[in-house]
């Protein structure tokens, strides 16, 4: 069995974000980058499947981006992926989801992966498009937003999370593509011995030009901070002063505090 896991590197979402120089994206200065949270579940699910299948599956982990993504690919290999592919692109943030999906499909097309895992969306762009588009381009079955995963006799049984906590149970024959929702599993922390082992694993670097033949379909006009609602009151300063003010406001504005 051959498995592909596609992961993205994103900034820590607790950061403060500023708009970049050309006004179309966030400025990367001073940001700490890490593996997209949803993708950690994708890596974990692939590794768990490998363990359940007696270690026979071979897991390739792929990412598109600048040099900094190499560290994240190594982390995925320390979690248990067998080999890494870094599709090098300094300007990956300028590619729209269609271009990213086309490049990944271009890489995967002749490799006969049985299962492909994605996170359901990235934390920065959040389009939720790339996984389903790759499935569509490759012409394979796909289930998105998966919170339950089981594999037996060549069939994946996946639980999709719907609004209000309802789940839809679906079955897919291989080859198939799954996009992972938070809570699907508990992503592991790499252990020191596994981090050392990962350093010896193959990490292939390939230029984006080898796989990307498509033009963008959606352009960014501008990026900007959200307009403040303006009506909200902001309290700052001494904790006890703020407590006093807030209790006063609640007495005045709500019937809850008397």
């Amino acid at each position, binding site marked *: 069995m051959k498995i592909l896991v596609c992961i993205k590197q994103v900034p820590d979402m607790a950061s403060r974000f500023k708009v970049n120089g050309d006004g179309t994206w966030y400025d990367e200065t001073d940001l700490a980058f890490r593996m997209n949270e949803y993708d950690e579940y994708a890596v974990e699910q692939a590794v768990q499947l490998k363990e359940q299948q007696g270690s026979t599956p071979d897991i390739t982990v792929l990412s598109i981006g600048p040099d900094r993504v190499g560290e994240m690919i190594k982390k995925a290999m320390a979690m248990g992926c067998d080999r890494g592919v870094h599709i090098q692109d300094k300007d990956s943030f300028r590619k*729209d989801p269609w271009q990213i*999906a086309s490049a990944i499909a271009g890489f995967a097309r002749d490799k006969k992966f049985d299962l492909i895992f994605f996170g359901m969306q990235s934390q920065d762009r959040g389009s939720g498009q790339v996984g389903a588009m790759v499935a*569509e381009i490759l012409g394979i079955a796909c289930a998105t937003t998966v919170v339950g995963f089981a594999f037996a006799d060549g069939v994946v049984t996946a639980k999709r999370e719907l609004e209000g906590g309802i789940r839809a149970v679906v079955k897919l024959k291989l080859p198939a593509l799954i996009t992972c929702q938070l809570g699907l599993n508990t992503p592991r922390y790499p252990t020191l011995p596994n981090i050392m082992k990962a350093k010896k694993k193959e990490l292939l670097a390939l230029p984006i030009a080898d796989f990307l033949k498509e033009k963008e379909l959606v352009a960014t006009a501008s990026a900007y901070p*959200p307009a403040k609602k303006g009506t909200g009151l902001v309290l700052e300063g001494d904790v006890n002063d703020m*407590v006093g003010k807030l209790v006063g406001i609640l007495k005045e504005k*709500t019937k809850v*505090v008397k």
Partner: protein
Amino acid sequence: MKTLLICEYREGKLLESSYELVAFADKLGAEKAMVLIGKEAEVPKVNGKLYLADVAKYGEYKPDLHKKIVLEAVKKEDPDAIVFLHSSYGWDLAPRVAAALKAGQVSEIVSINEGKFEVGLCNAKLRRTVTPQTGKMVLTIQAGAFNVAGDPQGKAQIEKIDLPDAVSPLEFVGYEPAQKKEVDLARAEVVVSAGRGVGKKENVAIIAALAKALGGELGASRPVVDAGWVEHSRQVGTTGQIVAPKLYVACGISGAIQHVAGMKKSEFVVAINKDKDAPIGEVADVLVVADVMQFVPALTAMLQK
């Protein structure tokens, strides 16, 4: 502009949220036609063409077949925009349709800003306006972002769609109900929610104590539930409960779109966050810039006096 609106149907019923698509099309001033994989007794009350495919044949969730039905309607209608809700149904189906048509897709539109589509970036901490470069475009709209005015009263003109081939590579087995709700947050007058900013599981008790002092219920954001700090039945947001209490207190919650969608109809919102720029501030009546673990115990003590 001409829009094709993809309605949603689940457990034998048209979903009310389908009317948000109509509100979006009206806001664009666009012509509209609709698609529903459902049944005739459950079509939206909207004037205009409705392409109806039989749910008994095509299932409530068989995305490959639903994609073919949408593409068939696209062929007949030749719309400029194919519009979905950004929901578990829409975000799943839209990229398949977009890729099949090679149409630019814009996900989770929150508003229309000077004629351009506005979307979030980095958990809504920034925004972007985007412009599709293709003749046809696929759009998904944020749940709750486009409000429906009044009761729907139109009558759709139905045209049936049937495909010669209805084999799905994906088998839809059925639904699993949500975990039983131990608490119905929708009925609570006060909801005090814990977010990732509370730091650790042990600190949840401090938030629960404030909820008790206010005579309310404890809620939580998704990361706190996924971490196992609070049970799922207390999750506020699109995949948890939608609440509209008299008072909502968000403690250490940054304000991810999915959370805000679950609480923005609250009458009065207090947010406590050490980050003055946290997006929760956009929907807060009062934003207290403070460490949750310092401020909340002091507030609870004051209320108990």
